C-alpha cells in the first residue's frame, strides 16, 4: 500500500481504461462526514467490493505525550480530558491512579466510590454517543436525537459534579477536585430513569429492525483469534465472546465491591457489538446505583464546638499566628470552594502532604498550610514520585486504557505513555472491511467508536 498512498487519485482511472477491468482507488476522508474529519481510508475497489484498504491516522495529533513531559504531574490532567472527549473522566482517573501507583499511595474509600460512580456515568454517555452516531450514519436519525437527549441528562450530572461538561479536569493525584453535590443520588436516579426509557425506545427502534440488522449482522466481523492477536479489548473483544474486562480481571478502586455482569456476544460482528454496548449501559447504571448506596462517609473529623467565624477575621488570625484551634473550625471561605471544604477535602484526598494540596482553609489560615501549598506549587517542588516505572490499566469505554509512566525522581514525568483503547481496532479496520461492500465501511467504522483524541493523542 505504500506506493498507493502516494499515488494521485483520479476519478475515472479504473475500469474502462485499457483492456479488461481495473481496480478503482477511492479516498474516504479526512473530509468525509462518516470519518469524523480525522481519518483517511484509501480503499481499493473491485466493483463495489473492498479488495484492500489502508487507514491513515494522525490528523488530530496534539503531542499529548510530549506535552506531559513538559510540566509537573498535575499539569497533565487537563490534557487527559482531551484524550477520549466523550468519557473524559475515565482518562482523568486512569492517569491519576497511575501516578498514585508510582507514589505507592492508596486513595480514600470515599474517593474510590466517587471515581467508580463518575467513570460509569461516563461509560454510559460514551456508549450512547457511539450507538447514536453509528445509527445516524446508517440513516436512523431519530436514534441519534434520542441518544443525545439521554446523554444530555448524564452530562448535566457531570456538569453538576465537575463544573464542566467536557473539559472536566476533575481528578487529582491522590483524590478528586471536589465532593459530589447535595442530593446527587436523587438526580442520578432521575437521570437514569429517563435514560432507561430512551434505551428502551431505542431498543425497540433498532434491535429487531430489518434495515438495521441487514446492515449490521455479519458485517465487519473479526474472529476471536484475530481480535486477540490485534490486542483489541473492550466491547469489541467481548462481542467476539471473550469476557475480558479490566474491572473484573484486575479490580481497581471499588469495582470488587459492586456486582455487575460482563455481557458478551458470539459472532464479533457489528450487531453483537451493538448488543454488547446496549447491555453494558444497563450494567454501568447498576454499578452506579450500588456505589451510591454504599458511598462511605469517610473520616470527617470536625470539632463542632468551634464557633464559625467570618472568613476575613479567620485569615487575619492566621496571619497573626493565632492558629490554635483555627484548623478545626469549619469555615466556608468562598462559594467557589463548594464541595471541597475542609471536612470533605479530608474524606476525598489522601492525607499525604507530599501529594495533595491542603484545603484552602489551611492555606489561608495557617503558615503551615501556606508553606505546604507553595511546596507543591513551586517549580521543581511538586509531586515527586521515586524513580521507577509503572503501568496502570483501567477499563475505558472502548477497552483497556493504560498509562505507563516513567519517573526520574523530579516533579515532572520523564515519560508518559497512553495506551489508547481504540488504536488496535483501527489497526484492524482494513482486516474488517476487506472483502465487504463499500457501504459496509460506514457501520464497521461506527462500531469501532473511533475517538480521534485518544487515537492520535
Amino acid at each position, binding site marked *: *500500500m*505504500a506506493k498507493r498512498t502516494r499515488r494521485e487519485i483520479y476519478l475515472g482511472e479504473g475500469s474502462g481504461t485499457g483492456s479488461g477491468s481495473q481496480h478503482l482507488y477511492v479516498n474516504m476522508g479526512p473530509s468525509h462526514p462518516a470519518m469524523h474529519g480525522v481519518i483517511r481510508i484509501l480503499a481499493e475497489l473491485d466493483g463495489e467490493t473492498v479488495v484492500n484498504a489502508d487507514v491513515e*491516522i*494522525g490528523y488530530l*495529533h496534539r*503531542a499529548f*505525550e*510530549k*506535552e506531559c*513531559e*513538559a510540566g509537573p504531574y498535575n499539569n497533565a490532567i487537563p490534557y487527559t480530558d482531551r484524550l477520549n472527549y466523550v468519557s473524559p473522566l475515565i482518562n482523568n482517573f486512569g492517569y491519576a491512579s497511575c501516578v498514585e*501507583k*508510582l507514589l*505507592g499511595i492508596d486513595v480514600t474509600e470515599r474517593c474510590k466510590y466517587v471515581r467508580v460512580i463518575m467513570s460509569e456515568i461516563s461509560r454510559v454517555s460514551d456508549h450512547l454517543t457511539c450507538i447514536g452516531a453509528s445509527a445516524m450514519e446508517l440513516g436512523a436519525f431519530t436514534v441519534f436525537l434520542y441518544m443525545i437527549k439521554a446523554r444530555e441528562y448524564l452530562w448535566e450530572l457531570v456538569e453538576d459534579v465537575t463544573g464542566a461538561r467536557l473539559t472536566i479536569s476533575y481528578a487529582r493525584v491522590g483524590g478528586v477536585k471536589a465532593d459530589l453535590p447535595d442530593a446527587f443520588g436523587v438526580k442520578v436516579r432521575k437521570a437514569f430513569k429517563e435514560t432507561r426509557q430512551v434505551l428502551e425506545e431505542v431498543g425497540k427502534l433498532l434491535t429487531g429492525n430489518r434495515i438495521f440488522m441487514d446492515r449490521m449482522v455479519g458485517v465487519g466481523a473479526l474472529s476471536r483469534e*484475530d481480535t*486477540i*492477536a*490485534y*490486542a483489541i479489548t473492550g466491547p469489541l473483544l467481548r462481542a467476539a465472546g*471473550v469476557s*475480558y474486562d479490566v474491572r473484573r*480481571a*484486575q479490580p481497581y478502586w471499588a469495582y470488587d465491591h459492586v456486582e455487575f455482569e460482563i455481557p458478551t456476544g458470539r459472532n464479533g460482528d457489528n450487531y453483537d457489538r451493538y448488543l454488547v454496548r446496549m447491555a453494558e449501559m444497563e450494567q454501568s447504571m447498576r454499578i452506579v446505583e450500588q456505589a451510591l448506596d454504599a458511598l462511605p462517609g469517610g473520616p470527617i473529623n470536625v470539632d463542632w464546638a468551634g464557633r464559625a467565624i467570618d472568613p476575613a477575621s479567620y485569615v487575619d488570625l492566621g496571619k497573626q499566628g493565632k492558629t490554635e484551634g483555627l484548623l478545626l473550625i469549619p469555615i466556608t471561605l468562598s462559594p467557589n470552594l463548594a464541595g471541597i471544604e475542609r471536612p470533605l477535602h479530608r474524606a476525598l484526598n489522601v492525607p499525604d502532604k507530599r501529594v495533595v494540596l491542603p484545603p484552602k482553609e489551611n492555606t489561608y489560615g495557617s503558615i503551615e498550610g501556606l508553606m505546604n501549598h507553595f511546596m507543591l506549587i513551586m517549580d521543581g517542588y511538586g509531586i515527586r514520585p521515586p*524513580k*521507577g*516505572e*509503572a*503501568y496502570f*490499566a483501567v477499563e475505558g469505554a472502548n477497552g*483497556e486504557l*493504560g498509562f*505507563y509512566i*516513567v519517573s*526520574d*525522581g523530579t516533579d515532572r514525568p*520523564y*515519560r508518559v*505513555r497512553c*495506551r489508547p483503547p481504540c*488504536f*488496535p481496532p*483501527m*489497526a*484492524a479496520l482494513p*482486516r474488517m472491511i476487506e472483502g465487504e461492500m463499500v457501504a459496509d465501511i460506514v457501520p464497521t467504522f461506527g462500531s469501532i467508536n473511533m475517538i480521534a483524541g485518544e487515537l*492520535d*493523542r
Partner: protein
Amino acid sequence: MDGQAILLRLTSTFGPGIVETHDHHGDPTAVVERSAILEAFRFCRDDPDLRFNVLMDLTAVDYLKYPEREFGPRFEVVYHLYSLPHNHRLRLKVRVEEDDARAPSAVGLWPIANWFEREVWDMFGIRFDGHPDLRRLLMYEEFQGHPLRKDYPVTKRQPLIGPNN
C-alpha cells in the same frame, strides 16, 4: 503465576539472555538481550504456564537525560504483555544504542505490532527489522526528526509543506 515466578521461569530458560529483572510496584519486568527478544516473545506466548497471548502495548523511552543513564544505551523499547487465560501481566524491555537504533519486529507474532512499531519509528526513530511497511504513523511523510526524542525541543517548528505558489 505471580510476578516472581514468571521472572524466575524466564531467567531459568534464557539465562544470560535476560539482562536484569525487577518487580517494582507489582509489575514484573525483564530486560532482554536484543538477540533473544523474539525467542522470548515466542516462549512467553506459547509456554502453557505463561500464555501471554496479547501484546497490550509497545512503546519506547528515550533515556538521554535520565539521571545516571546518560551514557548507557539510549533507548528502551517497552513491551507490555497480557495473558487472557492466566490473567497476568509482564513487561519486557530491549535496550538499543543510539547509533544502532533497531530492534527485531514482532509483526510475525502479533499483527498489532505493525502499527505500534510504526508509531515508535515515527516518534523515536527506532527501526524494526522485518517490519513489512515501516512508515510514519501519526506524523506526515515530510516531518523532520522524531518528536518524542529528548533532544527534540518541544517548541521546535517544522517547515511548511504543500504546493509552492
